């Protein structure tokens, strides 16, 4: 299936969880948040959140700013 991760189109196998996807970007145990189709998914639910075709995922962290 095809999903969008931080604006990039990716092919992932069906049944991929949000937790598995974030793990491909970072192993940081904190400081990271994810939104699935414009809704925040708490970290504790990442591994039980299965992604679907066409999902848009944003994975954010803190950077210098303000």
């Amino acid at each position, binding site marked *: 299936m095809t999903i969008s991760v931080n604006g990039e189109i990716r092919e992932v196998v069906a049944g991929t969880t949000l937790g598995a996807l974030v793990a491909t970007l970072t192993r940081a145990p904190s400081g990271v948040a994810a939104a699935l189709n414009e809704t925040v998914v708490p970290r504790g639910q990442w591994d039980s959140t299965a992604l679907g075709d066409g999902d848009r995922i944003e994975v954010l962290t*803190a950077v210098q700013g303000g």
Partner: protein
Amino acid sequence: MADDLLTIGDTTFSSRLIMGTGGAPSLDVLERSLVASGTELTTVAMRRLDPSVQGSVLSVLEKLGIRVLPNTAGCFTAGEAVLTARLAREALGTDWVKLEVVADERTLLPDPIELLDAAETLVDDGFTVLPYTNDDPVLARKLEDVGCAAIMPLGSPIGSGLGIRNPHNFQLIVEHARVPVVLDAGAGTASDATLAMELGCAAVMLASAVTRAQEPVLMAGAMRRGVEAGRLAYRAGRIPRRHFAEASSPAAGLAVLDPERPAF
């Protein structure tokens, strides 16, 4: 200062300088600037995670024991800002947010309608909201009415270094506010920070003035002292401005001297 604490929401600070982390040439310079500034509250932005980036501003703040204040910089609508604040809460474990909702890239001026909308939503959602706002006393009052924990008016556009363009508006905002008023944006040098505090601001927020100075660490120390000096002057109560001189030496007891017979 220990006998003159700043309280925002349920938290007290001994420093009245809030520093941003944006614009620093390196994490090392940022760290030394933060230490020199004495700040206890520091903003960060939320951006897409880039796996190639080495080092993290969060680890610097953690090492220094400085509280993190996520902002919603780059948001143009209430919806974007609310989602960004919720992501920041999830990522950083804080329900504090420096709320920024700007109208356009050129001026980065706040969009008052979107700002007020986002502020109300976030307060209802349990956030401690510190809004970056125009220097508009009416908008400041409305932001306070919806429950914002502080009011952060701009002195002049972000990064402009033009100081406080309308000190009178700041006085109007300060006179009415029951929450801390924080100069946010526009400070260019230490005297700008001092003026803000003399006008009755509870604190000063700045980033570029330090991080983009030729010597950021020196400027951080200057800002710290500028804020302290202005705060002390505000508490001390300045003398009234006069049109004419008022002698500080006594008029009584002057010797009677013959001006026709100088001694030299």
